[in-house]
């Protein structure tokens, strides 16, 4: 509608557009559909310079940045020894104070899912990560990402030293496994996952690891393999893998060489090692579903709470059963047997109000009066919501701009207050109290320790919480504490060499239950309460093979919780009065002399190296030379460059190419596009200039073939209203001279084009395209020749797509679109081909006014195909089938005919980056009266509509 790239330049510009837009901008701005990365905050970046790092941080998070800087320098010293390698360049570390702020980073253009803990960006070697409030996690992620930095740098050096092309890396399982192996011990999550995988027979060896490519299991198996290899073959062998990387083109051979055995043997030894470790658990522990009653079957189910009303018993909980995290409930009998299937009570992740549930980190609660409290991400920060358990109506929401991340709100006994955990702008993770009626917020703790999982204690003036403030020999372990309000005196409840969390008090306040990884995975433990005092005796009351999460009491003898088993999180009912396993035990804690809290180390640097203002430093992102050849226009060449600043806020694009066919045309045939786009604030804007000359074959232009000389400028603006919808506007002014007959200017025009668009997208994607949600857009445009009045037309585009899920992976997709241009020299739209009207010639149907509609039934065929070749193995995932029906027509001067097609096909995701489609069917011809003879067949790479 504004800048028209004619057909002759199509190949060239297609390449350029692909370069510019993949994967950079696929997420949102200035494109058809896509969710938005909303920049709620304008960060005032500062820089801290240490010996090896440039640390970027903002706002009030100076203390956390200085602690992180200290960790980074510590890790650098460790890794140089482990890897016999030094990174000689300065490493940029970019810190965010929470995961919510981190999701706004411009360093990677794509949307960052909630679970991402940080990333290392290979192009400019940047490390980007949030502090989650836990300094231990912060340290772990810094370590994890710096292992990537060292590994990538080392592999590069090894290959370069041997003059081997440096464009290869070890496979992902090793890359991530190594990062975990060098950055943390096997924690309760890793242990839980590996136990479950081995005992339930979904463990895969290195030979078949392609089958779980990219999954969390793959990360943890990679770590487990290196733990095994380090223990059996020696820790020095792990770093040696990198030294030996040059020796073979196959990484499997590198592994075989380093460990001195065939991969089949190594795999067998690893499995034997794991079985030796885990099979004895079968004797002393039990599967969760044997010792407890399983309440749910499908999806990922968390944080159950029990509530009874109208003499009916319900379990309320948060779950992801269909791709969206939401609130559900189901009714149970008085014996707590589910008597109905789960009912959705609040749909999450489809609108801004409930943009994200922190499913793995948070918990919900229910008051005696029937209010459910839960938290979601809402815009730039989290909000607390109160929902009526009986009517499922939202009663109230609370949001505080200083509390960025919130989790686990819990009611007081009278239901007038809640305590919750939140991370503030400093990056501190603390406990807060909110009076519901007055919105009065009271901060209970205020320091860099990670205080979380609060519950009201023996009375409403006491709060029990878990914290890593533990000092002494168990330093930084998460133990349970109490704090009195007011007074703020903090006391240990537990002092264990383990991580304890999710404390809950029994309704009669006679016992405190909590979860601890004392024996490797999360199980439930109990402390008795007598005379308003917590005892020193800890009793283990569950011995599940894998982990337990977010328990809550139903009554004094029953609890419900979320348990991990068979790679799934389900809800369970557990009877406390009937321990059915004899390996439970009790022990006394030594609580006589309890240590002071530990103190974090801050980096020590000269004052001039602190709080420096961030000055934009630009560097090249990519530079690509392109030469295209076609039989009509001959050979032409050009280049495209992109540069950004270190934080990715400003992007400059340069496109330069020449369309001269003979030497004398060179000077007149330069085509230049310069464009700047700024992503720093909530409003993204761009502006640029262009100059384009050349012969044009343009199927969307009535003159079809002509010479055009045009230059001008453009301005773009995009305002995301939320993650799901945005407004866009563009303005372009273009001086265009058109010559249909050489040297005779057929049409002069100074074109001014305005567009205004609204885009909505809350679709959920499967392997081959959207599977749920809705996408819609409306564009209005007006183009006029403001000097000669040679061109004057307006444009309307409307496109609506809806995805109606029938089953988990089965759906009905519907599309209706209209394209309308009206006025003098209005351009034509086109359709036909596998993008839209299947079976018809590509771009074969043209008109100024088109309509199009499609209906497609998508269903699963095969989820995974594994191919085993002599030298490597390959896996393909998500083979899907489709039945489709398309129809469309041209509405120019009068309505001519309706085109249609129907057929079937299959789609397959290739390596997670694109979809291969093969369709066959019949055209519906002759104004929808008859089918074509035979069948059409179409082969296509691209996503489903």
């Amino acid at each position, binding site marked *: 509608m504004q800048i028209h790239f004619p057909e002759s330049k199509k190949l060239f510009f297609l390449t350029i557009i692909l370069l510019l837009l993949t994967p950079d901008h696929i997420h949102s701005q200035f494109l058809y559909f896509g969710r938005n990365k909303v920049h709620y905050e304008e960060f005032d970046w500062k820089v801290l310079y240490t010996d090896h790092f440039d640390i970027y941080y903002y706002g009030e998070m100076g203390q956390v940045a200085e602690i992180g800087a200290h960790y980074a320098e510590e890790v650098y*010293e460790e890794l140089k020894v482990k890897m016999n390698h*030094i990174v*000689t360049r300065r490493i940029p570390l970019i810190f965010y104070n929470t995961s919510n702020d981190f999701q706004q980073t411009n360093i990677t253009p794509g949307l960052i899912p909630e679970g991402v803990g940080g990333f290392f960006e290979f192009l400019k070697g940047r490390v980007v990560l949030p502090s989650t409030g836990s300094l231990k996690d912060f340290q772990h992620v810094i370590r994890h990402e710096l292992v990537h930095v060292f590994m990538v740098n080392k592999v590069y050096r090894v290959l370069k*030293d*041997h003059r081997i092309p440096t464009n290869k890396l070890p496979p992902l399982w090793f890359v991530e496994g190594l990062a975990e192996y060098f950055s943390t011990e096997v924690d309760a999550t890793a242990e839980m996952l590996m136990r479950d995988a081995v005992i339930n027979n979904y463990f895969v060896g290195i030979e078949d690891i392609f089958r779980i490519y990219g999954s969390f299991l793959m990360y943890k198996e990679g770590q487990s393999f290196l733990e095994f290899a380090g223990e059996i073959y020696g820790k*020095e062998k792990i770093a040696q893998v990198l030294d030996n990387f040059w020796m*073979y083109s196959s990484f499997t051979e590198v592994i075989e060489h380093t460990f001195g055995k065939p991969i089949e043997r190594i795999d067998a030894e690893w499995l034997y090692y794991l079985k030796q470790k885990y099979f004895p658990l079968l004797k002393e522990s039990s599967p969760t579903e044997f010792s407890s009653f399983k309440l749910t079957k499908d999806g990922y189910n968390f944080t159950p709470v029990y509530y009874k009303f109208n003499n009916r018993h319900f379990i309320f909980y948060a779950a992801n059963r269909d791709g969206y995290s939401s609130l559900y409930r189901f009714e149970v009998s008085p014996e707590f047997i589910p008597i109905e299937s789960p009912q959705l009570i609040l749909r999450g992740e489809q609108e801004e109000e409930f943009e994200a549930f922190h499913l793995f980190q948070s918990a919900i609660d229910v008051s005696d009066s029937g209010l459910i409290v839960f938290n979601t991400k809402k815009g730039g920060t989290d909000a607390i919501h109160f929902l009526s358990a009986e009517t499922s109506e939202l009663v109230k929401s609370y949001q505080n701009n200083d509390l960025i991340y919130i989790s686990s709100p819990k009611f007081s006994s009278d239901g007038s207050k809640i305590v919750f955990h939140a991370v503030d702008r400093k990056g501190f993770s603390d406990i807060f109290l909110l009076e519901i009626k007055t919105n009065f917020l009271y901060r209970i703790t205020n320091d860099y320790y990670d205080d979380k999982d609060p519950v009201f204690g023996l009375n409403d003036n006491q709060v029990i919480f878990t914290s890593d403030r533990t000092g002494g020999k168990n330093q930084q372990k998460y133990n349970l504490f109490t704090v009195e309000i007011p007074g703020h005196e903090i006391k240990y409840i537990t002092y264990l060499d383990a991580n304890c969390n999710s404390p809950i008090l029994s309704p009669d306040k006679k016992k405190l239950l909590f979860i601890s990884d004392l024996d490797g995975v999360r199980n439930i433990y109990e402390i008795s309460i007598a005379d308003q005092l917590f005892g020193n005796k800890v009793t283990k009351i569950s011995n599940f093979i894998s982990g337990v999460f977010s328990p809550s009491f139903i009554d004094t003898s029953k609890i419900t919780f979320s348990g991990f088993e068979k790679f799934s999180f389900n809800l369970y009912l557990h009877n406390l009065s009937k321990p059915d396993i004899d390996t439970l035990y009790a022990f006394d804690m030594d609580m006589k002399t309890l240590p002071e809290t530990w103190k974090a180390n801050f980096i020590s640097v000269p004052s001039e190296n602190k709080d420096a203002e961030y000055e934009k430093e630009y560097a090249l992102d990519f530079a690509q030379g392109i030469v295209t050849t076609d039989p009509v226009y001959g050979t032409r060449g050009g280049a495209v460059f992109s540069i950004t600043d270190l934080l990715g806020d400003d992007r400059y694009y340069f496109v330069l190419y020449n369309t001269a066919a003979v030497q004398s045309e060179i000077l007149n045939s330069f085509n230049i596009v310069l464009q700047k786009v700024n992503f720093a604030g909530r409003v993204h804007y761009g502006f640029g200039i262009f100059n384009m000359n050349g012969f044009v074959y343009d199927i969307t232009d009535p003159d079809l073939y002509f010479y055009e000389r045009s230059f001008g400028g453009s301005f773009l603006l995009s305002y995301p209203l939320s993650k799901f919808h945005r407004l866009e506007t563009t303005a372009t002014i273009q001086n265009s001279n058109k010559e249909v007959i050489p040297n005779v200017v057929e049409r002069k025009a100074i074109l001014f084009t305005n567009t205004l668009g609204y885009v909505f997208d809350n679709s959920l994607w499967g392997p081959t395209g959207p599977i749920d949600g809705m996408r819609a857009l409306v564009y209005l445009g007006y183009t006029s020749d403001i000097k000669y009045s040679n061109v004057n037309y307006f444009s309307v585009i409307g496109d609506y797509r809806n995805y109606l899920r029938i089953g988990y992976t089965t759906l009905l997709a519907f599309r209706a679109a209209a394209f309308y241009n009206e006025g003098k020299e209005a351009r034509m739209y086109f359709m036909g081909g596998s993008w839209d009207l299947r079976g018809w010639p590509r771009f074969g149907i043209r008109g100024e006014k088109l309509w199009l509609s499609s209906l497609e039934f998508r269903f699963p065929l095969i989820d995974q195909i594994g191919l085993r070749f002599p030298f490597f193995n390959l896996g393909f995932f998500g083979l899907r089938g489709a039945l489709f029906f398309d129809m469309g027509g041209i509405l120019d001067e009068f309505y001519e005919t309706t085109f249609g097609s129907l057929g079937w096909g299959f789609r397959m995701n290739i390596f997670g980056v694109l979809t291969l489609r093969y369709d066959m069917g019949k055209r519906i011809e002759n104004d929808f009266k008859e089918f074509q003879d035979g069948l059409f067949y179409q082969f296509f790479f691209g996503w489903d509509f």
Partner: protein
Amino acid sequence: MGFLKLIFYLLIVMLFISGCARSVIKLSARLDEEPFQMFGNTPQREFFVPVTVSDSLIEKWENSANGGFPNSSVAIYDEYIFINDLSGRVYCYNLLDGTQVGKLKYKGAIYSTPVPYKSTLIFPVSLENDYLTELIYYDLLNGKETNLIEIPGRVLTEMIALENAIIFCTEFGSVYKYDLFGEKIWETHTRIPIHSSPCMSGNKIIFGNDKGEIISLDEETGDSVYVSKIGGTFFSGSSVSDNKIYVGNENGYLYALNSEDGRIVWEFNGGARILMTPAIDGQNVIFGNLGGSLYSLNKFNGEKNWETNFQSVLNSTPLLTNNVIVLPDVLLSFHLLDKSTGKILKTYNLDGRAKLSPVLYKDLLFIGYDDGLLRAYEFVE
């Protein structure tokens, strides 16, 4: 044909010719009574030159190899200097002006300093993708290869040059002795991987292995003399002085062992992995670790004389003179240190990571750094 096109075609032809050029080193060396023939110069690998030097250097020449260098060193015979690289090349330069005399090109990587004899150059090429080493005997006088012997496993450590034979270990755990004509004298298989460069103590070959053992073989027969279990993988090469073996391990310990039976005489914990071969003079043993600490110990009792820390990893053996230590540093420099105190006298910056162990020969100091650059300096007052 336009002039530019002609130039273009000529360039293409020249590139083609240079690409196909035969790699050759052809020279006529005089008998050198004191060549620098191997890593550490002597089979004991002392890295000590008994001269007193200043702390001022001037650059004499620089030349480049194709690939990066390992932590080996140059070898020198007569007026020729030889250097291997990790892309399978051996280069020969003129000692005095650095001009390239010739180069040899193989597929693989050469980890060991080539061993020059008067008219023969011997070096092992570790192959890529095949678990083999090609032991090359090259006739310098006629500029041609005289022998290529395929040996199972890769040679990733330094060779020992004897008067009439060479000795080397493979990663595979085997030890070989060949004469100067390529005839195998003996081979011994220990079956434990070896990543530690061997040295000689009298007629005993000494090396450590991945299992943390120090092994001694009889130089004449290859028979085992003793196996001493120490603990901790040995990646560091060993050196010998006054019947004591000095060697460091992965656990950060530097050991002084009795060379007769391999028993520990003393040990010193430096706290971080040791990869470099220790350097020894009359009184001291000098070694660095990956933690960046350089230590001087009394070689008789293991007492620490001094410790200097660098923000670096120290993995290349330093050179010792009477008064100065020349220490390569991967942080793009090398240092001259006062041998008695460990204080840095002067630091010389480089454009890449210092990799080679420095060699001082006829007043010239040779420093090798990334990417494959060899530089000669001269000490000046």
